[in-house]
């Protein structure tokens, strides 16, 4: 069988190497080369998607297992279930769009090459994370990814970029290294041996309560930093404000999902008892994230910061869904991970288009654009509506599923979280109002309308959100079984207590 997953992981990494190795004469075409690599990657993923057997979406498919460093119990074990598939698709859809969105960003060819190569490298690592079936391999991708990201933030972007890059790195490393202690401890708790890190071999370990809780916490901390949860979220707005829009879009739309992905596929599955033990506290923090993110979003003047705070709020909803341990809520959270990626990715891209036109991300520098650039305004409005979960657009379905699903276990939390959903309307509409309505400032009278390239970036995402908004079953069919498996692990043991 064709080793889809290995190719998906390795192809962008090789692509990055190719870009760096290109002779100077060929570098003028570096954007086209990078874009075609990501398109090939997308096509490969699409072929895999078609071949994916939906009836056994809960099982790992396209599995590959090779011995890697048997001495420490790790193997190159890849595999994909419905949830991983959704995440990989998100990654391969958004990466080419991010490259397209930043098409004109660099004039310096060397800089452009570095940027694109780093983006490709990031893609390789993030696909790797979503398909790893070995905890050590997962960890290696998880940490190695920091290097290209660190350079993406620190080398390209605004004035505060170095500060933001270091902040990002420190936050991620503290989380990652504490997780390393957990990873090692997990190995010793498990069966050990040459495949001791294989996820399959690590489920159903007979932990002592303390060991399970401590290891759970070490994993959860790392994931809570990635899926920025209050109070570990402070790196995100700083990074979003200074990094390039393409980087930020990938970071928030795809990479931060690693946090929630890890919670779903590692925390809940490997440490069911500890997950239940910690759930009440986590849900409280999730609700705080929802409200805090929403409230702070309202107060932001910088559009990039604003969008990043909305994401903190949305991540709170996902975590709420995950730790409510209900079939519907977990399905909803998984679906939301995909839909939020589309919606936030698109939102960052459109904000990026606005910034290019005005040279500023400050809301007060805009106004009355609706009359000048109606298409841009309309695009922005639809994408904004998806962020506030308007029915008909896909995030709505997932948000509702989380809230309904969680109601049976944590009704109070749902009430507060719903408040956050209401606030979402406020921050999105206020932003729209200030940027697109009212009198048009002089400098904006000749603003360019959305170009063909920009439409190619934004509209496919809108299309996807509309399709999944009206036919959510298309996606849910892939997520139901993985969610069922997770719920059965978390709740079966509950009955046994």
């Amino acid at each position: 069988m064709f080793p889809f997953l290995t190719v998906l992981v390795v192809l962008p990494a090789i692509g990055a190497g190719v870009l760096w190795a290109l002779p100077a004469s060929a570098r003028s075409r570096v954007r086209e080369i990078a874009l075609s690599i990501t398109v090939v990657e997308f096509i490969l993923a699409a072929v895999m998607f078609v071949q994916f057997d939906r009836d056994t979406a809960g099982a790992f498919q396209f599995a590959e297992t090779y011995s890697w460093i048997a001495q420490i119990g790790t193997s190159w074990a890849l595999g994909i279930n419905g949830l991983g598939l959704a995440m990989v698709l998100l990654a391969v859809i958004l990466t080419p769009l991010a490259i397209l969105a930043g098409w004109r960003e660099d004039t310096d060819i060397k800089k452009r090459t570095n940027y694109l190569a780093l983006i490709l490298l990031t893609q390789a690592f993030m696909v790797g994370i979503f398909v790893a079936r070995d905890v050590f391999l997962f960890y290696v991708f998880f940490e190695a990814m920091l290097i290209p990201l660190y350079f993406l933030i620190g080398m390209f972007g605004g004035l505060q970029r170095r500060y933001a890059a270091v902040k990002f790195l420190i936050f991620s490393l503290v989380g990652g290294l504490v997780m390393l202690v957990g990873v090692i401890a997990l190995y010793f708790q498990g069966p050990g041996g040459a495949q001791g890190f294989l996820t399959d071999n690590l489920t159903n370990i007979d932990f002592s309560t303390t060991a399970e809780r401590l290891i759970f916490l070490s994993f959860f901390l790392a994931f809570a930093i990635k899926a920025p949860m209050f109070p570990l979220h402070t790196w995100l707005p700083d990074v979003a404000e200074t990094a390039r829009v393409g980087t930020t879009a990938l970071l928030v739309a795809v990479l931060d999902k690693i946090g929630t992905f890890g919670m779903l596929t590692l925390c809940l599955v490997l440490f069911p008892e500890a997950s239940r033990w910690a759930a009440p506290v986590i849900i409280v923090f999730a609700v705080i994230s929802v409200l805090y993110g929403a409230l702070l979003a309202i107060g932001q003047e910088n559009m990039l910061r604003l969008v990043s705070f909305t994401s903190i709020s949305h991540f709170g909803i996902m975590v709420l869904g995950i730790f409510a341990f209900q079939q519907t809520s977990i399905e909803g959270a998984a679906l939301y991970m995909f839909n939020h990626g589309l919606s936030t990715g698109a939102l960052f891209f459109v904000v990026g288009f606005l910034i290019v036109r005005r040279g500023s991300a400050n809301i007060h520098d805009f106004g009355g654009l609706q009359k000048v650039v109606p298409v841009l305004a309309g695009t922005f409005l639809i994408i904004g509506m998806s962020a506030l979960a308007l029915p008909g657009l896909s995030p709505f379905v997932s948000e509702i599923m989380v809230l309904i699903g969680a109601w049976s276990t944590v009704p109070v939390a749902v009430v507060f979280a719903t408040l956050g959903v209401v606030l979402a309307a406020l921050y999105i509409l206020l932003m729209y109002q200030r940027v697109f309505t009212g009198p048009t400032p002089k400098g904006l009278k000749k603003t360019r309308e959305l170009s063909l390239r920009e439409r190619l970036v934004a509209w496919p995402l809108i299309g996807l959100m509309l399709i999944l908004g009206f036919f959510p079953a298309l996606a849910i069919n892939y997520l139901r079984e993985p969610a069922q498996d997770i719920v059965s692990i978390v709740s079966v043991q509950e009955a046994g207590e």
Partner: protein
Amino acid sequence: MTFVTPTIEWAPLVPILIVLGAAAAGVLIEAVFRNAETRRLVQFLFSLAALLAAAGVAAIQWATLEGAGTTVMQDMITVDRQALLWQIIILVFGLLGVMLFASRTSGGESSFTELGATVPGSLDETIARRKGFQLTEVFPLAMFAVGGMMLFTSVTDFIFLFVALEVFSLPLYILVALSRRRRLLSHEASLKYFLLGAFSSAFYLFGAALLYGATGHSSYEGVAQSIESAAAVDPLVLTGAVMVLAGLLFKLGAVPFHSWTPDAYQGAPTPVTAFMAAATKAAAAAALLRIVYTTFYTLEWELSWMIWAVAVATMVVGTIVALVQTDMKRMLAYSSIAHAGFILVAFGGFSADALSSVPFYLLTYGIATLGAFAVILQVRERTSGGTVGGEATRLGQWAGLGKRSPFLAGAMALFLLSFAGIPLTGGFIGKFVAFSAAIDGGAWPLVLIAVIASAASVFFYVRVIVLMFFTDVPEGAEDSIHIDYSPLARAVVALAAILVLILGIVPGAVLDLANDAAVLLIGVAG
């Protein structure tokens, strides 16, 4: 009273004898070849050949070792896989080190003074320079140090260990003093290193004497047996053990025995720093490992507090002080202290896994260290007149290095990431196995402190990367840095970079070797 001549089985000692013999022959070469250029070349090639031959023999011994190994001279020396692995590691460091010793700038300038005996700044010094003197004794000195270190890793007798300690320390004291530039600083560094070294030797010797007094044995095994058979722990034994460990921790550069490190690292000629940082640490860790796992294993309860306290202090002090350094060599010195702490973490659980993880850790650390100092060797100051000066070790001078030399800056970034323990570099696997050993032994609180220290240490490693890649060359300072091209130093950088990547991505084969070496002929796992 009759004395029996000891019978010595020479065969297991061949690698050590080759190196020590080559060192002695090197002294003769000094007398035979009068022409400085020829002498230098002969010394270099001869040392290289001897090291390679020794490594070859050690490898053959590894492959043909019968059983767990063999002892020589009434158990004074043990040649088992653990010893052979360490010997090979030290030979690898020696090879890379000697290449750096021989490297010269494109202007033909070596790192060593022309004539060590001249007073700095004196007329003699000028004459020595004008006459084109070259100090080639550094090669035999380095060979003595390598031979002593190899012996140090294989000795299983407290008195003999002291001999080996001095055999490798004395040449290092001299080597530290031989810098070409800033000679007074180099002399000062050497004196400090010598005085503190003598102090720690005394500590060690006193400890060994106490152990002998309390147990009547000087061999590791003899002391171990009397500790084991004693009904209660003899306070004399405990005091002796603590003092012996203190003497060895000095060589490892652990807090509070670390104060020589920054000065010696900064003042010494960079090739010596590179060699010393990698090989001394390896030798010290090897001896510590053998003593702890042969003799003091039964004292886990009494001694683990000391290892824990020293490990925590070492990691914390090394990391925090490194944060504020503004000189590359000093920063790497403090980072080496932090690494000594990480090495001790592996000991913390008294798990037998340390016997395989510590050698692996030292291998990754040593190679990255040699590579990093080889980079430092090639980043040089240039005066406004255009003459090339000494190494540019101020951090600020590294700004924009990525533009000046992508190769050197890229390799340096790789070494720093390896120090920091980022995946896909050797340093990560090293940390992973070291921490695994500690967690296996139940020392997870120690590991937790270690990972937090690791996270903090990333800050100063990354600061250098930021300087090299994100910062522009300061205005008007475009010509102030000269990127030197020395084939030997470049080769060391390239080799080290390749090894760091191999150890990070496909470490399986080396881990296998390390696991095979986790058996002591005499001791816990034996």
